[in-house]
């Protein structure tokens, strides 16, 4: 290589290297997704073949698996439930975690550190030892077998997480801004609502997204508290109604996962930059 590379060539090479590095990651991450997608459109008899290439259709693609989903299960209701549950959980989380995070981060409360750590530690308690006592709580509230039960229970893991997140975030807001607002006649609360919150919007959004995703990762609580077919969220409804005895409805299972997972992934991507800002909260200053 005699001639020095031009900037363009350099850039091209750099891109090439980066892409080469990224390919394995993309393959690892995406292949199972691709596999789910193609399985969702396959005839069942196309699945049980060893002689032909599994990566593509050997029989014409079918929508049968989706028909099963929408006409023979309550899939439509599950989607609505999942979204409504997540929205409520996000709301409850915001109403509790945002003020708590602010108080812990900004108000120099006596014992703040210990309270913060204690709230945080509750995230450490595994769900498997909480679900039986919680089922009594749910029954006492009269919420058993309704998705409202999950609205009550899911904040047990979203609140600790998001409190921490918000705490970190509020620390990045310069104290001076708040003081200036207070000088301008806003009270403590006014300063919080008018100045600090707007600046912390990325953090708030991050919390919302997190509340959403965490709610969708649960299986055990949903299983234990919600049995009626039309009250389940997707992650519970799908494995409980598409695995029957010793028969798996593979195509429908995978279709169901994708129809819910992909929109959330897209949403996630939208907010990823803010999210990154959010978790870095209290750093770098």
């Amino acid at each position, binding site marked *: 290589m005699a001639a020095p590379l031009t900037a363009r060539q350099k850039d091209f090479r750099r891109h090439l290297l980066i892409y080469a590095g990224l390919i394995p990651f993309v393959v690892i991450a995406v292949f199972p997704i691709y596999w789910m997608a193609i399985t969702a459109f396959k005839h*069942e*008899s196309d699945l*049980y073949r060893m002689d032909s290439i599994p990566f593509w259709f050997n029989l014409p693609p079918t929508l049968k698996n989706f028909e099963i989903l929408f006409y023979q299960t309550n899939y439509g209701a599950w989607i609505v439930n999942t979204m409504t549950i997540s929205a409520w959980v996000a709301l409850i989380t915001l109403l509790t975690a945002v003020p708590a995070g602010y108080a812990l981060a900004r108000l120099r409360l006596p014992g703040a550190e210990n309270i913060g750590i204690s709230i945080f530690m509750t995230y450490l308690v595994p769900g498997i030892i909480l679900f039986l006592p919680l*089922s009594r709580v749910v*029954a006492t509230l009269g919420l058993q077998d309704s998705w409202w039960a999950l609205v009550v229970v899911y904040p047990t893991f979203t609140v600790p997480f998001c409190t921490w997140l918000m705490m970190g975030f509020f620390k990045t807001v310069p104290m001076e801004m708040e003081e200036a607002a207070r000088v301008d006649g806003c009270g403590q609360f006014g300063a919080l609502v008018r100045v600090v919150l707007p600046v912390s919007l990325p953090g708030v959004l991050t919390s919302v997204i997190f509340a959403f995703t965490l709610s969708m990762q649960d299986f055990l609580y949903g*299983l234990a508290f919600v049995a009626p077919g039309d009250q389940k969220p997707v992650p519970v409804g799908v494995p409980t109604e598409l695995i029957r005895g010793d*028969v798996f409805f593979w195509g429908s299972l995978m279709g169901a996962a994708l129809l819910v997972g992909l929109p959330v992934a897209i949403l996630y991507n939208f907010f990823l930059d803010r999210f990154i800002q959010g978790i870095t909260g209290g750093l770098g200053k």
Partner: protein
Amino acid sequence: MMDPSTLNRRKFLSVAGAGVAGGSLLTMLDARQAPAQIRGTTLRILQWSHFIPAYDAWFDKFAKEWGDKNGVKVRVDHIPHLELPARMAAEFAAGAGHDIIHNGSSILTRLYYKSLVDISDVFGSVGRKYGGWIPAAKPLVEVEGRQYGVPMFYILLPMLYRKDLFDAAGLKAPDTWELARVAARTLKPKGHPTGIQFSQCADANLNWRSLLFSFGGAEADASGDNILIDSKEMREALRFAKALFDEGMTAEVFSWDDASDNRFLASGIGCWIHDAISAYRTTEDTNPPVFKNTVIGLEPAGPAGKRVSVAAANVYMIWKFSKNQQTAKEFLTHFMDNDLAGMTQSRGYNMPYLEANYKKPMPVIGTDPKMQILQDFPKIVAFYGYPGPFTTPIQEVVNLYVLPDMFTRAARGHAIEDVMKWGMGEYRRIYAKHKRA
């Protein structure tokens, strides 16, 4: 799904088939008598997702129709059988939930009986009406002489074998475990091994017990209190399983779950499997040529000619906290009156517990030449705990997969005596703990 007219016809046929002339009239009258006091109540039923979706659809409709007729609001919820214990524990802890709860495979009567309604009356009257229960039924639901559940149906795991492959190799039907082993040994080199789950799943618990019991062994005695696993028969069964694995299977059986052997048969690879007829049905739908050549065989006999077929039991119970116990009892009686309609709807999957319903030809299985053999199973059917009841220590043994683990260890090449030592240790520890408690 079926329309009401066929339902009635089927029901009529089934009742007529039962051959209890007086009984049938009674049945029909019963079905119409709506006890006034249950009007206006609600009934919530929790049961598994049946492997035949049409059965669930039929059942939901069946329950609703009964409710409409009797002024009862009925709701049926379905969850997979594996998740039933968790759900039951949650409902117990909550003291609220469904009125009727279904137990599949793992029958938890002895664990929960203090929280269940004593329904000896329903058990007794249904039994009397239909010529009695088969002997294996009672231990499922009985604690200290009272019955806390109504056995609804059980699921057989017969031999399913490829007649075409057997014939081509000049093999005899797998009527004994020894013949089954010879077949696997012969056909494996031809690309058609056999497979039984050496893993932690429900089928493994059932299949290996069928083998052990047919070999004359047992886990506990008839009282349920004394461990009998340390026996010559158990050692023989282990040795046999090891040989069967070495000669006739591939290592994939270590990873199998309940559904793997279905696929193994449906793909045309397996020469025989020991599984529920859902495997037969799956094959019918996905691989018709293989289905055509698949034959159902009687439970293979052990070395002394003994046949014990361990089946997956299904039982309904009523929670004590239920406020609609009378309604629940009425419904269970009504359901039992339509036992054979359920069998029809499940495509022959649900086997009855009532003697009168074994009158040949039975619905579905009696008319399909390949399935007729299933009518001979009631004499040899057994459940967990055989020959005794399904006690709480056996429940733990089952749920921790101790027995399949022993067979797995043997197949992996552990010395038989080491396997026995490990297994006996587990059994003793579990039994001792339950005695202490």
